[in-house]
Each structure stands twice: as structure tokens, then as C-alpha cells.
């Protein structure tokens, strides 16, 4: 799982100029549709709340849902025009494979921390990522791991008496 050779990273909080590659049109439609579903689902329980509790969610939710539906229509029309536009280059991995792997790495880090606790989870995640993904030499892996966890331990655990998250098995 080595880093990509071409630049696909993001630029700033919102992509500008040469930001992430254009997503597939079908993915855009799926995301837009998902947002419409979420907003519609958010309006469903409102009648069960009291008048005061449902006022602002209604005032905000209904216009937002209408905007989201308009956005879905717009994106669908664009997707139809862009049908057949090939975006993947020859030799590149299947679209979505690399993003899924990146998401899996992040979720994996969280899972390790949640289950095993912060210290053990980080001690596994940091070296594993740098070795498997980054192909870093062992000495650098060791130095970076100590460089991140060492100061955290000294400042928070020893000096400020803050305990690490123990984990579900801790």
C-alpha cells in the first residue's frame, strides 16, 4: 500500500484550483441522494416533538431539504451529460480503491485505540502505518513513535496527571 506517485491530495479546507480529482458523476449523484434521504429522515420525527422543539428544525429542515432536492436534480442532469466521460488513466487502480484504503487506515487507527486503549493502540498503529504504507526504515519508525508518544506521556500523564484512555479491554 504505497503512496500514489501522482498528486491527489486536498488543498485547504475547501478544494481550490488543483484540488482533489473530480469525483465520478455517479458518485456525486449518490452523495446528493444520500443527503436528501438524511434530511427527509430528519423531518419524520418532528411531529412527535412539542411545538417549541420542532419549530427551528422545521424552519431550517424544510428549506434545506428543498435545496438538497434541487441540488440532486442539478447533479443528476450534469451526470447524464457527463456519461461516458472516462476519468481513470491506464494502469491506475480501480476508482475508489485508494480512498477506501485510506479511510480503512484511519478507521483502523480509531478501532485500535477504542479496543486496546490509546497507548497500546498508538504503539501498534504508528509503526504499522509507517512500515506498511510509508516503507520507512526501522530507526525512523522508532524515533517518530517515541517523538509523538514520549512528550504526550511526560506532559500529560506525568506532569498533569491525565490518564490515557484505557480501552475496552483495559
Amino acid at each position: 500500500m504505497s503512496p500514489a506517485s501522482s498528486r491527489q491530495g486536498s488543498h485547504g479546507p475547501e478544494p481550490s484550483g488543483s484540488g482533489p480529482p473530480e469525483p465520478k458523476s455517479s458518485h456525486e449523484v449518490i452523495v446528493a441522494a444520500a443527503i436528501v434521504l438524511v434530511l427527509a429522515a430528519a423531518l419524520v420525527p418532528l411531529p412527535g416533538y412539542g411545538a417549541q422543539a420542532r419549530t427551528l428544525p422545521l424552519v431550517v429542515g424544510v428549506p434545506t431539504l428543498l435545496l438538497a432536492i434541487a441540488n440532486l436534480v442539478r447533479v443528476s442532469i450534469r451526470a447524464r451529460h457527463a456519461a461516458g466521460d472516462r476519468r481513470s488513466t491506464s494502469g491506475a487502480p480501480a476508482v475508489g480503491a485508494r480512498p477506501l484504503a485510506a479511510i480503512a487506515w484511519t478507521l483502523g487507527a480509531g478501532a485500535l485505540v477504542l479496543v486496546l486503549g490509546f497507548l497500546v493502540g498508538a504503539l501498534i498503529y504508528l509503526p504499522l502505518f509507517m512500515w506498511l504504507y510509508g516503507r520507512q526504515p526501522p530507526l525512523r519508525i522508532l524515533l517518530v513513535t517515541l517523538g509523538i508518544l514520549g512528550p504526550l506521556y511526560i506532559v500529560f500523564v506525568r506532569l498533569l496527571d491525565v490518564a490515557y484512555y484505557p480501552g475496552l479491554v483495559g
Partner: protein
Amino acid sequence: MLEAIVSALSSLSPTLLLWMTAGVVVGQVVAVIPGLGGVMAMVLLLPFTYTMDPDAAIAMLLAAAATAGTGNTITGVLFGVPGSAMGVATVFDGYPMAQRGQAGRALGAGLLASAVGGIIGAIGLAAIIPVVRPIVQQIGPAEFFALVLIAMVAISRIGEGDTWKSLVAGGLGLMLAFVGQEPSTGTLRYAFGSLYLWDGIALVPAIVGLFALSEMISLTIGGNPIASDDAGSPSTSGVVAGLRDVLVQWRITMSSSLLGTGIGVLPGMGGVAAQFLAYAQAERLSKNEIPFGQGAVEGIIGSDAATNAKDGGSLVPTLAFGIPGSAPMAVLLGALLIHGVQPGPSVLTERLDTVWLLIFVLILANIVAVALCLSFSDLLARITRVRAAIIVPSVVTLSLFGAYLESNRAPDILVALAFGVIGYVMQRHRYSRATLVIGLVLGGILERNYLLMTQLYGWDAIQRRPFLAIVGVALLVAAGSTVRARRRARRDEQGSPL
């Protein structure tokens, strides 16, 4: 008055200054952890102050809180990660600048703007105290509601690119803010039987996920450092250019500082709203050709100056009325009570020396903080060149640490992860994370003040609070100008030879 000033100056002993510096250092270290801010620094230091000299204790706590915003600038610029909820606006332009190899300039501008804002806030505190009572008594829920609305409409301009998607994201953010207990009746909304969601979506883990984890997912995909290959090398001249920017853009620096001080005076508004209002104001005053949200240094100057200036302002209701203006002030209020200082009208007469001591501490702490950070800024700017294989796991680890430490709840880690994925999807499909987080952050304040306003004034609110009518007109003007600006930007884009 003069006696109080002299007494305060004489309290500035080397020991007190040492404790103040310790507070600054702890504030900076804590602020570098994504999601942890001034409140966490104060909470961690508070137990150590029980046996300390009262003046030193209060100086250390105030220094930690007042300068944590300076640390926010570092994480916001270098990693695109808000150090806390009050550092969100810094990311909008700081991170794009870092990606263009201008991290030094962004750091220099942000750090000096923070210091100037903090000093002006302290001076503002000194000036406002004699006249604060009638001012604060005029400001009520209706005015708060109006101010938050202004901030939200004004900020909608920065959701670059797709207007539809920005508005949808903002609406989603507001809906997320409604999760949990409704403020007046306690009705549970969208909790789905989960005790964790009774308090709503945890803000800090959500922000950490939306900005930190999503950026790290993007870096993992790209495999490149934060700064692009064709960006120039970070250098000291970049930092100096940033310092110069603050002086050249003195109108933005001053107006944002004064705005932050004024907003800080209003209990409950805090730096969260101040940064967005100041950011929008900076955009109006800026003559920069670079659009805000894409690396305009004025955006950093406006938001950082206001965020630090608000500390001076928020001391006003804390000291004068015993009403904490923000979460850090609530902790400071506790510390004052522990050490025998009773906030209230009497503190302005019987403990004026303590008030002046706080003013001097604010000024000195901001100077020390910016001097410390500037001395390392060149080194810090080089972090943007570190390869993704090292930056990504480091930031992810620190982010998960910060997300948990904020409230010591394991589900906060899940929230951070979920918003990390959501943030990446939003980024990839060009939905504005900025407007989502603004809705999430300001939605709760908006609803609370709306409910209070309707309970106090009913539907006569506009008639009984004329300020609302003025704000209504201002909002229409702001909305119209936003639509015109977007149409102009789209026309320019379509007409561009590029």
C-alpha cells in the same frame, strides 16, 4: 485608579512572571493537540494553583487561556486542523497558504495578529470597565440572536465554489446542532435512545474529524507532503512578510481586534462567533485579489486578532457581574472565588489592583507567547515538507488523543472517526465543511437566543427591540451582496482565458 495601577505593577514579581510564562507554555503545548484549547489548559492547571499565591495562580491561568488561541494558529496553518472551536476560521486561509509553501507567512501573520488582538483586548478592558454596566444591560437575547444571524449570513460568502452545496452543508450543520435536548422544554431530539446524544453532537470531536482526520485521509491518498512540490521553500523571510502583512493591513487588524473585544463583552457569544464575524468583516475590507478561503492572509489576520481580543472583552462581564463571558472565563471565575476574589460590582472599587494585574498579564502573556512561537516558526513551517508517511500517523494519533481528552468519553472517538469520513466525502464532492461547522457551532447559540427572545417578547420582538429591524435590513443587504459577489465570480471564471 493610579494607586491600583502602581499596586498591580508592583505585583509583577519575577516569580509571578515565571508562573505566567509557565501558563503560556502549557497553553501552547495543549493548544497544539487538535481539539484541545484554552479551557483544557486551565482545567489541567487549576489543581496546581490551590496552594499558590493568589496573584500568581490567577496570572498563570489567565495566561494559559489567553494564549491558547496563539497555539491554534500553529495547528490551523500547518495541518489544517483547528486547535479548538475558536480556531476554525484560521484554517480557511492558513492551510491553503501552507500548501502553497507560505506557511511561514501565514504563521507570522497569525501570531502577530493574535498578539496585537490580545493587547488591544486588554486595553479595551481597561477602557470599558467604567462604562460597561449600561452597555451590557442593553444587550439581550434578541440582540444575540440577531448577531448570530449576521455572522451566519456573512460567512455564507466563504463557502467557495458551489453555492447550492454550501447552503445545503450549512443547513445540515444547523440540523446537527439540534441533536440532543431542546433548551427550553428538554425534549430529546434525534437521540435514538442514546444517552451520549442527550448533550448533542460533541463539538470538538466533530471538528477534529471534519478537518484533521479528513485531511489525513486525503494526504494518505496523495502520499505527498502538505506543501505542494512546486511551492517555494519555507524561509524566515516568509515569517517577516507575515509580520509586515499585519502592519500593512492595520485597518483589518484594528477593526477585528475591536470587534473581538466588543463581542467578548457579551456573555455567551465568545470567540466562536467573534472569529466568524471578524473574518466576514476582513473580507469586506480586503483589497486582496486572492479570494477568501483560498489563502488570503487577511482572513488569518481578522480571525486571529478577534479571537485573542475577545479574552480582554470577556473579562468584563466576568469581573464586573460575576457572569463568565465564555467557558475559559467560567474556569477563571472559579479560580477567582477559590483565591478569595469575589467578582461583581465591588471588584471594580475594592479590588481594582487585581483588575489591573489581569490587564497587565494579558498584555505580557500575549507578547511572551508570540515571541516563543515566532522563535520556532521557521522550524514549524518546515513541517509542511515532512512526508505524508510521518505526518499522517502523527496527526491521526494526536487527533484521537485530543478528541478523547476533551470530555474523557470513548464515543467521542467514534464521533471524530465518523466526521472524518463525512469530511473527506464532503471535500471530494465539494460540499463546504466550513459552512457545515459554522451551522453546527452557531446553531445552538441561535436556538437558545431565539427561544429566550420569543419567550420574553413574543412576536412583538421587532417592535420592542428595534435593533432587530436594523439587523433584518442589514441581512437583506448582506444576502444580496453575497448573491451578486457569487454571480460576479462565476462570470469572471467563465470569462477567464485559463
